[in-house]
């Protein structure tokens, strides 16, 4: 029972299943620990789903009590857990920050740097509409005329990018500026490879996205 080498797309190099799995594990961990939603990696998820499918077909050919079948099933359960939890974590953020995310995403879609998959985006828009409808029906349409507006900007919940997170540096990055909110006491730190820190997410958000640090 062999895991095939995978092709992501024509231009990209072939990568092996274990690399895809490691990538997904890191994506999952970062998504769990970052306050904002991160750019989707549907390519990786679909690639792994393909692997699972392939593996499941092969397991079915084995006798039920075969030790190998249990081992493969266990591994598949582990991978399914990561994928489900990853997608669910994204869904939770999409719901919580729905107004902000839908707004940001509209702009990102124009520049082709979208963070959501098409079905996540559809989900976010539907979700927002359903909330708006419910609030209007129960409250807004029944209150006095000058109070009826659905004030979308007031209602928006913004991810707390200033919140503190733990990270481990995957490679050395020098000169991270920890801006002091009051301007006069900025501090500069270096993240040496393997070192660990707790600091505000906003200072290292880009490094999470380009893989130079890992949230822990």
């Amino acid at each position: 029972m062999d895991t095939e080498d995978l092709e992501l797309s024509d231009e990209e190099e072939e990568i092996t299943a274990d690399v895809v799995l490691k990538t997904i594990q890191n994506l999952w961990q970062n998504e769990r620990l970052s306050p904002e939603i991160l750019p989707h990696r549907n390519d990786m998820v679909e690639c792994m789903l393909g692997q699972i499918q392939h593996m499941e077909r092969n397991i079915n050919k084995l006798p039920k009590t075969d030790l190998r079948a249990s081992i493969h099933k266990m591994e598949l359960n582990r991978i399914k857990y990561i994928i489900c939890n990853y997608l669910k974590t994204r869904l939770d953020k999409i719901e919580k920050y729905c107004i902000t995310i839908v707004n940001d995403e509209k702009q990102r879609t124009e520049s082709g740097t979208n963070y959501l998959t098409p079905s996540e985006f559809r989900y976010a828009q539907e979700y927002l509409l359903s909330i708006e409808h419910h609030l209007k029906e129960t409250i807004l349409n029944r209150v006095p005329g000058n109070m009826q507006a659905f004030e979308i900007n007031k209602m928006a919940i913004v991810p707390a990018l200033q919140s503190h997170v733990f990270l481990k540096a995957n490679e050395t990055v020098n000169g991270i500026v920890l801006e002091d909110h009051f301007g006069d006491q900025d501090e500069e730190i270096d993240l040496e490879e393997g070192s660990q820190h707790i600091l505000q997410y906003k200072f290292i958000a880009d490094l999470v996205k380009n893989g130079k640090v890992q949230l822990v």
Partner: protein
Amino acid sequence: MSYLSVTDILVSNEKVPCKFLHDLPKLGFLDPSCTDDDLKAGTSVEIPIWLAESLSSRRPPLVTVDLPKVYKETYREIFSADACTVDLHKLAQYFYELGCYVAKYDIKGEVSTTLVNTFRQRFKMILSASVATDSINALQPLSECERDHTAAAMTTEKALSSWLKRGESLLTTATMVANHRKRKRAEMEML
């Protein structure tokens, strides 16, 4: 703070002393001791901070906001002497949150310093309450948000010690399902 936050709404319902700068016809009821229909300029009344904020931010302002006593100098001195001896639950359960609202009416910025230092000093109370064997007593003097931090830390602590003790985590009934079951059982017993 989020528009939809229930906690923030409850915090902003806390009252602060205000002095009205203009007559308010027909709003005499804002002052419980007033028997008149109208509220006269110069009256001092305690009103919720959400209302005080909105009235003091009008141009011209309709009220001046005074600091509640726990943020005044006498108390600030107590806090700076030893913040850990104060029973914040009794004194001001939303000490920090309300403090953030009223700090802007303290032009010297001393309220802000008191809030910051008090939180820093009292952090060790949260730490010890989260591992205390007598958690009821340890929790008692903590303010609402300090209690929330402690409760969260206790949850972590519990999860960790049960992980250290147990082999495997059992799958369990979902929280809401379990709680509604419990509530239903309690209701049945009352009948």
